[in-house]
C-alpha cells in the first residue's frame, strides 16, 4: 500500500474493496459509502484527509467535492490536518474522568512533552482528547487506531509508550484489513 508523492490514488486491491462497499447500497445511493471510504482514505493518507484526497474520494463516488468536505468536517474521527504516526486518543467524558482520565492525559503530556492536540517534533505521536468511547466499565480508556486500551494506569501508559516507540507504531492502517 504505497502512496507515492505523485499519486494519492488507491491501488487495485483497495479500489476493489471500495467497489465492494459501494455495492452494499442501492443503485444511485453510492454516496452512502462515503464514511467507510473516508476511513480507508484517511488510513491510506497517513492518518489525515487532505483536500486532494477528499477530491479523489468525491471522484470515486461521483459526488461534488463540497459534499465530502461537509461530511469529513462533521465527524470527529476524521483529521483535516496532518497528524503523527501514532495518534493517542484519551477519553475525557464523565465516567473516564471519575476514574482518573486527567491523570492519564497529564502523564502522556509529560512523557511526550506535548499538550493535547499537539504532535511530537519527530512526528511520531499525536495526543488527542476524545469524548465517550463507550467502554465506561473499564475506565479510563484510550484508543489508538482500531485498538482500545482499557483500565488505563500510569504504569500501563508507560509500558505502551515504550512498546510503541520501539516498534515505531503506526495507527493508520486500513480498518477493513
Amino acid at each position, binding site marked *: 500500500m504505497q502512496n507515492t508523492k505523485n499519486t494519492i490514488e488507491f491501488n487495485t486491491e483497495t479500489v476493489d474493496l471500495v467497489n465492494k462497499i459501494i455495492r452494499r447500497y442501492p443503485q444511485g445511493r453510492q454516496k452512502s459509502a462515503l464514511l467507510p471510504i473516508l476511513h480507508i482514505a484517511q488510513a491510506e493518507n497517513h492518518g489525515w484527509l487532505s483536500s486532494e484526497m477528499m477530491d479523489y474520494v468525491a471522484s470515486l463516488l461521483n459526488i461534488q*467535492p*463540497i459534499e465530502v468536505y461537509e461530511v469529513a468536517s462533521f465527524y470527529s474521527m476524521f483529521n483535516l490536518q496532518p497528524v503523527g504516526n501514532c495518534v493517542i486518543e484519551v477519553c475525557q467524558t464523565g465516567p473516564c474522568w471519575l476514574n482518573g482520565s486527567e491523570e492519564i492525559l497529564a502523564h502522556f503530556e509529560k512523557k511526550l512533552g506535548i499538550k493535547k492536540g499537539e504532535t511530537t517534533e519527530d512526528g511520531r505521536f499525536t495526543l488527542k482528547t476524545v469524548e465517550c468511547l463507550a467502554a465506561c466499565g473499564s475506565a479510563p480508556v484510550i484508543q489508538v487506531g482500531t485498538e482500545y486500551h482499557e483500565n488505563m494506569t500510569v504504569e500501563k501508559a508507560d509500558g505502551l509508550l515504550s512498546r510503541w516507540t520501539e516498534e515505531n507504531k503506526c495507527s493508520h492502517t486500513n480498518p477493513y484489513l
Partner: protein
Amino acid sequence: MSLVKVTIDEIEVEVEAGTTILNAARKIGGNVVPPAMCYYSKLEGSGGKCRTCLVKVAQGSAKDPRPMPKLVPSCRTVVQNGMVVQNITSPEVMEARKAITEFLLINHPLDCPVCDQAGECSLQDLSYAHGLADTQTIEERRTFAPIDIGDKIKLHMNRCILCYRCVMVADQLTDQRVHGVLGRGDHCEISTYITKAVDNDFSGNMIDVCPVGALTDKTFRFKSRVWFTKPFDAHRDCPKCSGKVVLWMKGEEILRVTGRKDKYGELEVFICNDCRFEHKEDKDWEVEGPRKIERHSVIGQNHYEK
C-alpha cells in the same frame, strides 16, 4: 383542493390542506405572523432550524383535540382541520422566542454600526421585537476572519446564523454547489473549504436570501447606509432572468441592484448576477417607479422627494 380551518391567536382562517401554520398565519397577516429566520418559501426543505417561529398548538385538530406536547416550528408543521394555534397570545411562546433571540445573539457581533445589512436585517428586527435590553453573557464571542467568496460577495461568518438558505440557493438554483456548511456544533461555518470562488450566474441570490449581514454585496460595501438610498422598481430585457429588480439609488447613481422582496423579506423572483452586478447605469434600466417597502424597517421611513 380541500380546505381546512385553523385558528391562530383566536383568528380563524381557511387554507388549503397541506399548508403550514406559518403560511396560514401569513394569510391572516399582521402581528400573528411568526418571525422566520431560516424558512424561505421558495427554497425547498428550508426551515425548522432557527426555532424563532415556534408556536403552541393548543388543539391538534377537530378529530384529535389533544394539544401538542412541545412548541412546534410553525414553518414545518402542517395545519389540521380544527387546529388551534397560539402565537403572540401564548406567554410560553413569547418566552421561547425571547430565549431563541438571545441564543442567536450570544455569538453575533454587535457591529450593526459597521454592517451593511443594518436597516434591512432580520436579526436586527427580531432583537428589536424580542431581545433583552441587556446582555446576560460575558463569554467571548466566537470569531472568524471575513473572506471573499468570489469577487462580488463578502462572507462575514461572525454574523451568520446558519439558516442554510444560501446553501439551498446553490443547491437548487445552480449546477454545482461549491460552498456548504462545514464543521459541527458552534464551530459550523459556511465555507468553500479550500479558497474557491462561488461563481455562477445565480450566486448573487445568496446575498438576498441571507437574513443577516453574513453575505453582502461587495459592489455596494460601505457606499451608503441603506436608509439613505431610495429604492425603485425597474426592469430590463434579460436573457437569463426576469430582469425585474429593485434599484437602490442615491441621487442619480445606482448604488445597488437587488431582487424584489415581499413583506416577509423573500424574493419574488431570483435574479441573475448580470442584472445584479453588471448593470449600474441609468440607461440599463426601465424605471417603473418608487418601490414601496412594507416592512417596518428604517427603509420604510424613506421618502421619495428629491
